[in-house]
């Protein structure tokens, strides 16, 4: 039976785990992630989730334990945030390089120093090149739905790559909204039990993750990139299949909002997409041709899709809740690169905002669109970084 519950983003993730039924969960608490694994440990204690819950001494150990369990052929789950993700950094490419499917929600939080528990996306962006698929969600419902999709994606034989499901700290993790929960049998049809392709088997001994010499190392990296390419189509297909079964589509690699005829488009990642859309809606009502492009998949990066949407704009803006120090916002760099092959490249502006939990108000989004109007007609891409609401 389908039901509807009032859930925080974190509890939406925990409920998703109830449907997913991983066999091993290993996690270490960290704000703002903690309430995910707290809720899950309650489910495990109540036998609503039939998993071994390993209470580890660190995030490095959490991902290592998941790695070991994945080696044994189990479906595994962990979740983290910020400094915890950084502490896992060594294990991230171990998991992706070993091609163990795994799903890890990352509740995005800033990186110290200065120390803070508030949100931005510096943590996940800093781990961009660890070989994990990185999806970003904009609300609790999408967090729930994306966790289900992420397991299908990660476990696909052509993909076999771990997935980070990123949800913004506090804005999503600690605010509640109505979340539609499917019937368990619907999810069982969408996500069948996991059959590991590589697993410990005493009758067929295997050497796991052997030390590679220069003769073979590059080939494994080539396979990893091929898997990322396969994931592109899979992410798009899963969004369609999910919509057919559950009636919701949060986008595949991207999600457009009134982009079709838009002269000015703002590109977003994560929860601020909602506010950007409200601003666009308001400006549309005033006759302005504006749109919002949500990037849902940061890795694999949807370069072709982005180019298609932005190529005919008069100007585009990119909102980054991160900074690649010494350059600009990481998303801006990638969006610009996507437009390299366009005959005429529209001018672009980079907006940096929402760092360390700072809010971005509706009027500030409207001001971004005004800035885009002013940038129209400038030749090529304007390298201009604008800090939103800087004091």
């Amino acid at each position, binding site marked *: 039976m389908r039901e509807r519950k009032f859930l925080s983003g974190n509890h939406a993730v925990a409920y998703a785990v109830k449907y997913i039924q991983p066999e091993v969960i290993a996690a270490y608490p960290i704000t703002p992630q903690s309430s995910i694994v707290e809720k899950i440990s309650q489910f495990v204690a109540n036998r609503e989730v039939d998993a071994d819950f390993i209470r580890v001494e660190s995030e490095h150990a959490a991902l290592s334990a998941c790695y070991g369990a994945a080696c044994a052929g189990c479906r595994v789950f962990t979740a983290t945030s910020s400094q915890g993700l950084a502490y896992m950094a060594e294990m991230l490419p171990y998991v992706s*390089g*070993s*091609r163990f499917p795994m799903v890890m929600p990352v509740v995005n939080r800033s990186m110290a120093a200065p120390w803070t528990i508030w949100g931005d996306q510096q943590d996940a962006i800093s781990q961009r090149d660890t070989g994990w698929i990185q999806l970003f969600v904009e609300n609790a419902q999408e967090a729930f739905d994306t966790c289900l999709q992420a397991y299908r994606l990660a476990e696909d034989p052509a993909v*076999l790559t771990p997935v980070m499901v990123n949800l913004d700290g506090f804005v999503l993790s600690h605010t509640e909204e109505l979340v539609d929960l499917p019937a368990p049998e619907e999810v069982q049809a969408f996500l069948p039990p996991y059959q590991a*392709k*590589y697993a410990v088997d005493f009758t*067929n*001994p*295997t*050497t*796991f*993750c*052997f*030390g*590679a*010499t220069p*003769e*073979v190392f590059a*080939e*494994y990296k080539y*396979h990893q990139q091929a*898997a990322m390419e396969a994931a592109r189509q899979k992410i798009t297909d899963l969004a369609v299949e999910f919509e057919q079964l559950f009636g919701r589509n949060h986008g595949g690699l991207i999600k457009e909002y009134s982009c079709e005829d838009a002269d000015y488009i703002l590109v977003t990642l994560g929860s601020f997409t909602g506010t950007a859309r409200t601003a666009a809606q308001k400006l549309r009502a005033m006759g302005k041709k504006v749109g919002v492009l949500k990037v849902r998949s940061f890795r694999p990066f949807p370069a072709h899709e982005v180019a298609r949407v932005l190529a005919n704009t008069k100007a585009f803006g990119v909102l980054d809740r991160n900074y690649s120090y010494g350059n600009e916002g990481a998303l801006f760099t990638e969006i610009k690169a996507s437009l390299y092959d366009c005959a005429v490249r529209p001018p672009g502006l980079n907006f940096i905002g929402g760092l360390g939990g700072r809010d971005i108000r509706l009027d500030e989004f409207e001001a971004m669109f005004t800035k885009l109007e002013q940038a129209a007609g400038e030749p090529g891409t304007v390298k201009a970084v604008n800090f939103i609401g800087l004091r």
Partner: protein
Amino acid sequence: MTVALPSAPHLPNPNRPITTGSWRTFRPVLDHEKCNLCLLCWVYCADGAMKRSEEAVMVDLEFCKGCGICAKECHKDAIDMVEEG
């Protein structure tokens, strides 16, 4: 390359195309007269290069990287590390 590589770095045993024998500078040479088949060398060899049977232990030179642990651990002084020619 003796076998096609799978897409992940996990290989079925014993078809390991990656060998470590070429790393060796010193080769363990066994004196079967002294050896009492205690299997300490088999236990300690970090490469699984020491092979055991009912009659004797044998070094798999495709994998032995010449670390000398076996010679150090052997209580019977039955293993000599001899420089490769």
